[in-house]
């Protein structure tokens, strides 16, 4: 389940509250990130930033869970605003990255 707070839904025991494995994933992902980003072409730092902007709008996943589930209205309103903000980043981030990358030509 995306939303651990939904206790009404059955969350498999091995997934609930296994914070150590989350921390583990975080550290490993950071190392992968450092390794991959270090190799990014220096020409492309501006599109890199708009691309990672779009990718970190993965917060959309949390926003959808909060907006769409059977929660009190005020919580879903907060979720909907967050969903709008994330979606704006996804759309404008990927579009402008592609627009910039198209411009880099060898000759």
């Amino acid at each position, binding site marked *: *389940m*995306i939303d*651990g707070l939904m206790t009404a839904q059955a*969350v498999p025991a091995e*997934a609930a*509250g296994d914070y150590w494995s*989350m921390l583990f*994933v*975080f550290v490993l*992902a*950071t190392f*992968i*990130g450092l390794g*991959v*980003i270090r190799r*990014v*072409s*220096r*020409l*492309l*730092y*501006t*599109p890199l*930033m708009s691309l990672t*902007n779009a*990718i*970190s709008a*993965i*917060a*959309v*996943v*949390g*926003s*959808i869970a*909060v*907006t*769409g589930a*059977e929660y*009190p209205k005020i*919580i879903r309103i907060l*979720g909907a605003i967050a*969903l*709008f903000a*994330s*979606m*704006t*980043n*996804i*759309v*404008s*981030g*990927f579009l402008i990255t*592609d627009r*910039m*990358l198209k*411009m*880099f*030509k*060898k*000759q």
Partner: protein
Amino acid sequence: MTYAVQQLAAILATALFIFSLYWMNDPKTARHAVVAGVAGMLVAVLTTWFQPVIVHHGWIVLAIAAGFVVGVPLSRVPLTAVPQRTALSHAFGGLAAGLVGTAEYLLGLTENPAQLTAFRMSAIVAEVILGFLTFTGSLMAAGKLQEVRWIPQRPVTYPGQNVVNIGVLVAAVALGVVVVLHPTAAWSAQAFYAIAGLAVLFGVLLIIPIGGADMPTVISILNSYAGLSAVAMGFVLNNKLLVTAGALDGSSGLILSIIMCRAMNRSFTNVLFGAFGTVQKTAAIGEQKTWKQETVEGAAQLLEQASLVVVIPGYGMAVAQAQHKVRELYDQLTKRGVTVKFAIHPVAGRMPGHMNVLLAEANIPYTALVEMDEINPDMPQCDVALVIGANDVVNPAARYAKGSPIYGMPIIDADKARTVLAIKRSKNPGFAGIDNELYVQDNTWMLFGDAKAVLGDLVKQFGSGGLH
């Protein structure tokens, strides 16, 4: 079953995001990066949306549609406005994290207090602090970059500023600890709102003392915070995909910040807490020399007779929107057998890579764009160094003038070229009032005026057949 599908989808999306960043290592493969990124995002969105617990589809469709309505125009801004668009999207990322964190806390409070364990509460507090400080900090940065009238462009400093800033942050964190220990007391919700309020305030205070030249570093740091707030959300929601994608963004911001700091010979803390404006202006160095002015005709002749011309662009080129005129000059010179290269300083412009994108927009091949470290050994062989709206990144004072705010900053060795031509908008000293002795060197000739107009006149010299 659905749990397994969810997890597989998260693994697939993570892999796609890693490939996406990997393909950015070469301009040739870079466009695959967008395809992989979009695919990863689609996988993540669809598998979340089609869970049985999601029932309010109307709200989701509406919010997504609104995202498209705002997102599409935001992707069409002129490339000179890309720094403020980037800052604005960091603000949106921070806002989303802050709001989801708040929603999660309220949900726990009203529906299921047992879920507010110390660990989850810590993650929620971290998410809310990071999210809201990124939100207002980035909005301020975007406002400064867009030159919004009521946001001061110059660094604003006052006595005790750092004490106030750090005090606000410490207060937010201390309140956070209290709420983590007592998540469900009668006053906990109020304390929680106070944390959010302090984070909002801290974001504003953090950016007030920052000036334009520090923006590349600040944008990178905010990029990192936006990623970390997504990581915190992942911890709250027990969602590994949020953690991995957030970590990728966080490490990208971290690496860019380090590169920007190195390129200015400054530390993180110095950028964030040692505003340029607080540095005392150094006394003028030696006796006042005066600059020599060159005519457009003379400059054109110098350029035509050169065999290697190195163009050094700076923020002034972006302000004047002169990149297309630069391209015309590039065409005229290469047609005449002159080798033209572009020397790119890492912090030229207002965000990492700003100059590269502007020059690429003007159809200058990326093979002509050369990094500072690679061009500097060639500078003594350079016949004409053409400085367009760059100032601090070519100031020789960075090499020896201790006490100068730019001391120790690596620079492009424009002064080692045989001749220097510098296009400058005004006769005033540049950022932070630092005099640039490059302009008064014996082999330097100034061209005063708007970069676009001056370059246009130069191109006309070649076009009109006045030269042959």
